[in-house]
């Protein structure tokens, strides 16, 4: 997304001369403020991380000692759980499968959902509000009810998995990676999010560009999309985590070990009454790392590097 046609966004750096002045004015409060903020954030982070710290601790605890006592640092840490997780649960293959599925889903949502959300916000057509609400409404129906219809449809995809043109005779997209992406490729909530995001931005730019004779596609791709970096970042993160965390759909449509996803691989350690805490938590740590990486990469989209983001503390 290179931005050759730099739009008049008002986001450019303020004239250099204004910066020092502003800094100076807020200087008196800053030290105190910073301390408060640091303490608040540190406290919250610690609280929020307690359960996760525990999971990491368990991941390094020999299985037979798990949950024996309240000890955050395991007495004799081990890497055994990690090898169990990787080998027994075939986690590498699951990671690869999940990564492929997640990549396709992220792409689908970043393109199709953002486009649709933009259109709903900026280019309303007759009945678009009604259409929009019925799309969003589908997210309010519990999956217990839609699971079987969706399963039947996945099995009945025409010309896939040995099916004829009417979708009969074979297994359709069951037990395939394509089948895994089906319910997630365009998430209605992402359309909703994109619409809300764009509905907050000014339409003046579009009007001006239209007067200049720019097409709608050009207006979107050259003016509004570059402004929507935080939106793209959020949708990428949410689509990724959404599909990465999904458990029920992969459980229902996959059967062969070749199409297992990470959550299914982890479920292997959740044996009733005999939960293997060590390997489970080790697996969770391994499976969480890619998501943190995706998050760290994308969260830079929240920093509009052109301003010093001065304001709200």
């Amino acid at each position: 997304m290179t931005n050759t046609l730099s739009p008049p966004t008002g986001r450019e750096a303020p004239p250099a001369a204004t910066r020092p002045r502003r800094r100076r004015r807020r200087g008196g409060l800053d030290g105190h403020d910073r301390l408060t903020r640091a303490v608040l954030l540190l406290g919250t982070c610690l609280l929020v991380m307690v359960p996760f710290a525990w999971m990491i601790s368990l991941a390094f605890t020999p299985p037979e000692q798990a949950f024996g006592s309240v000890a955050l640092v395991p007495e004799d840490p081990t890497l055994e759980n990690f090898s169990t997780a990787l080998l027994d649960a075939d986690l590498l293959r699951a990671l690869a499968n999940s990564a492929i599925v997640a990549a396709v889903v992220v792409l689908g949502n970043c393109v199709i959902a953002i486009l649709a959300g933009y259109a709903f916000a900026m280019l309303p057509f007759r009945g678009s509000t009604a259409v929009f609400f019925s799309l969003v409404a589908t997210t309010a129906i519990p999956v217990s009810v839609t699971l079987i219809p969706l399963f039947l449809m996945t099995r009945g995809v025409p010309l896939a998995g040995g099916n004829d043109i009417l979708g009969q005779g074979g297994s359709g997209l069951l037990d395939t990676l394509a089948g895994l992406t089906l319910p997630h490729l365009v998430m209605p909530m992402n359309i909703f999010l994109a619409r809300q995001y764009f509905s907050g931005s000014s339409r003046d730019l579009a009007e001006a560009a239209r007067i200049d004779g720019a097409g709608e596609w050009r207006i979107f791709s050259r003016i509004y999309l570059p402004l929507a970096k935080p939106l793209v970042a959020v949708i990428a993160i949410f689509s990724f985590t959404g599909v990465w965390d999904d458990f029920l759909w992969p459980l229902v449509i996959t059967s062969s070990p070749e199409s297992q996803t990470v959550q299914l691989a982890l479920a292997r350690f959740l044996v009733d009454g005999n939960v293997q805490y060590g390997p489970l938590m080790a697996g969770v740590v391994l499976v969480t790392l890619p998501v943190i990486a995706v998050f760290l990469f994308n969260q830079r989209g929240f920093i509009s590097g052109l301003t010093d983001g001065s304001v709200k503390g």
Partner: protein
Amino acid sequence: MLFVLPALLYVGIFHLVPVVYGLVLSFTDYDPLSRTSPDVVGFDNYVAIFSDAAFRDSLLVTGRYVLMVLPVTVALALGLALLVNRPFPGVGLVRSALYVPHIVALTAVSMVWLWMYSSNGLINEVLGWFQLPAQSWLYDEDTALPAVAAMRVWKALGSNMVLLLAGLQSIPKELYEAARVDGARRWQLFRHITLPGLRPILVYVVAMDIIFLAQGFAEIFVLTGGGPLGSTTTTNYLIYTEAFQYNRMGSASAMAFVLFAFIAGASLLAVRGMLGRRQS
């Protein structure tokens, strides 16, 4: 219109069709195990679930659950988003730390929370340091739902924060510049610029939280199994039981559409309320 078409087609086929299918099933006695075609039973399922006290109770539990989680998580997330909006050394790490709960597999995390709530778990241990009596958090009618809600707040905090953060970034910075030149105080900036600018995303956050919280299921499944005495049996938990334990898909679908009506009503009310303030 062309921009919307791909999304429309896709969502229409893979989201709307199953929903319509489910709506049709709600007027039948469909049993996925049965070999005979389902019979159409008219409104029998709807009549039956409304005369079922367990279903009515579950709606109340669901409502309570949403009210316990929603305000807390939105307020906390907003505060945190404001705190991590400005870049500082390590801001990425802090944001990630706050986001982590949202991405850790729920089943695994529930194991840890189960233990934290257990009679000799971390929370009772901490109470012990202050000479406070231990509680049986998940097994007491009065504390079970709040205990589940606390975990949900923890889990939902990160995603709400990220959304609000994106919203904050969409507010043009020059608005603040101008206001500050006019001598506006920090609270005034928040009240007259941040909050109105954040409104579209805030509407999204609240609407989505209502939609997802009202379908709370997995955390209940793992932590309490709906107990004690049904005090954590949300409607969606009941729907799951009805659909996959008792194989009564028709009645489960009817429950789902009644729940849907409540969710739609509640989200519309909330959205109206928030947008209404703009007009006044």
